[in-house]
């Protein structure tokens, strides 16, 4: 096992990784930017080292300073968390070269799954259904029009290197295609440094369901259940749950099997997530694989009692997976991402000082946060300040507990997404389990009703 792990991240995930290390008896080294001097991960780690100014490119993305810190402090492994360098194959390679274990998949697997179009092609060849569309990147408008004849309309233009909704366009007709294609290309180039696009059939009310996998590099690839992440806004997940409500056992088995196959094909090692769109009761389509721990991993942990971050570290240290092939889920778990954003003002970021912070507690509630009373949210990074996870013996109990927890969560000084979540939890369609990726757009009124209400 490792002697010391450096956590190349900040915020709640850095705290989460420190906890997993503690539980395994491993020493921890935090890194931080000048904006995070008073951050919780800095306080909780055994050691902490300042690696640069606030801008992420000069600190949390600054590979030489991170590697140098690992060497100076004698860390034998680096956990990248999510975001920042987590899916940078170059970083994983440098770790390898420096004889520091990268707690994540091999660089080749990151690379292969990083190019979404290439990944899609690879999966299709492996017999995993993908959303009908261009076999690879689409060169120009003419080629796009040709592909559109096979997918039909509406269709979706996506950035090959992208994610998170940037460089993405829904196109309703051939007339719209030309302009949308050019705009998406520019956006993709600006956001990801690559203008490569691909085209997909646009699914009307698909659900976003993903499968957590763990692979130990010794031939053991296990699917640890699924998560429904359909509650999204502009392709940003806001609420996730496990298990996916109303999924037939047959379709669930098919998803798990496809995920294991995807991981196997790409030679995957460590924790990863295979994302699918699910249409109706029968159709699954691979969309991408995230080669890291996900924000929403706790819902899986709550229904399986497997500590995924501990498993990541154990796998990276060369341990064999000691899990059964078939993981049984018990009960139901929901996660709400509490962002420092104002849902009543189009989710405008709301950084600043948190003047009061009383997290919820009690039965079935788990909180992952790096915030505390007096903490100032720096404006440089993402707006996630806490994750509340509620577990219940069934979905109704999980919802009731989540409503109670969010109702008592006292955060002063900033606006948060709590009112939005309460609105979703109270929505009759959500309660029936009728969720799909455009649920928020269709079912949630984000007008003044998004303002805080008494729970």
């Amino acid at each position, binding site marked *: 096992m490792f002697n010391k792990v450096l956590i190349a991240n900040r915020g709640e995930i850095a705290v989460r990784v420190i906890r997993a290390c503690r539980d395994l008896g491993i020493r921890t080294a935090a890194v931080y930017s000048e904006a995070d001097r008073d951050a919780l991960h800095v306080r909780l780690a055994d050691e902490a*080292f300042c690696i640069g100014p606030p801008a992420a490119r000069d*600190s949390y993305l600054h590979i*030489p300073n991170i*590697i*140098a*810190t690992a*060497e*100076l402090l004698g860390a034998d492994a680096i956990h990248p968390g999510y975001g920042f360098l987590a899916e940078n194959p170059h970083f994983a390679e440098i770790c390898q070269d420096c004889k520091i274990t990268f707690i994540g998949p091999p660089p080749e697997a990151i690379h292969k799954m990083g190019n979404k179009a290439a990944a899609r092609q690879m999966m299709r060849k492996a017999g995993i259904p993908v959303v009908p569309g261009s076999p690879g990147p689409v060169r120009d408008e003419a080629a796009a029009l040709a592909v559109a004849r096979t997918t039909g309309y509406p269709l979706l233009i996506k950035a090959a290197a992208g994610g998170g909704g940037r460089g993405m366009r829904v196109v309703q007709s051939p007339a719209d295609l030309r302009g949308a294609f050019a705009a998406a290309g520019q956006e993709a180039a600006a956001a990801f440094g690559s203008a490569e696009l691909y085209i997909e059939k646009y699914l009307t009310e698909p659900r976003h369901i993903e499968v957590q996998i763990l692979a130990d590099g010794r031939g053991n690839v296990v699917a640890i259940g699924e998560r429904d992440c359909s509650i999204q806004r502009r392709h940003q997940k806001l609420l996730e749950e496990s298990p996916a409500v109303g999924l037939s056992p047959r379709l669930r088995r098919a998803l798990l099997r496809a995920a294991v196959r995807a991981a196997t094909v790409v030679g995957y090692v460590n924790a990863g997530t295979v994302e699918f769109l699910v249409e109706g009761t029968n159709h699954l389509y691979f969309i991408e694989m995230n080669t890291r721990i996900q924000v929403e991993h706790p819902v899986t942990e709550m229904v399986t009692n497997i500590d995924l971050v501990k498993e990541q570290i154990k796998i990276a240290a060369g341990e064999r997976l000691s899990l059964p092939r078939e993981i049984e889920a018990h009960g139901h778990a929901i996660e709400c991402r509490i962002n420092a954003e104002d849902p009543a003002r189009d989710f405008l970021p709301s950084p600043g000082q948190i003047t009061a912070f009383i997290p919820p507690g009690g039965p079935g509630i788990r909180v992952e946060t790096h915030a505390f009373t007096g903490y100032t949210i720096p404006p440089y990074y993402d707006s996630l300040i806490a994750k509340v996870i509620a577990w219940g013996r069934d979905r109704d109990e999980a919802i009731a507990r989540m409503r109670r927890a969010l109702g008592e969560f006292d955060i002063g000084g900033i606006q948060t997404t709590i009112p939005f979540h309460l609105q979703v939890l109270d929505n009759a369609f959500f309660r029936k389990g009728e969720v799909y990726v455009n649920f928020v757009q269709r079912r949630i009124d984000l007008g003044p009703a998004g303002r805080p209400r008494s729970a």
Partner: protein
Amino acid sequence: MSDHPRFDLEELRALIRLAAEADIEELEVQGAHVKVRIKKARHAGPAGHGGEAPRPDAAATPGAGGTAVQEHRYTPIVAPMVGTFYRAAKPDAAPFVNEGDMIEAGQIVCVLEAMKLFNEIPSEVAGRIVSILAENGAPVEYGQPLFLVDPSPAA
């Protein structure tokens, strides 16, 4: 920590923040070795309060006070990167600089080793090395003060 009279940047920053938050115009603190005076800028408009502390106005107030300004003129040379601090180019070579040395802007004052590369660190200010704040061979953080320089010594 060390027996050098350290000029603690953290403390200074905290003092400035304190002065900014409280509604005071001038704050003067004098210790055995250090004396700090912070004077708030008088802005005509209400614009300023967002939360970020004001810049050390004392430093920007040139003709304000005689002795008070003295100490504040020391300028730190900070680590521009993470690395191991070495005062000399090689283990058996002479240090780039010693306490009391006069240095010019751009003069190499130390090397920082990171990922097997030795990076020569030039001073951005000219003046006299008042004190050396990091130990030879020690790991240094980004922004860590390495030297304290008096930019206008009695020459």
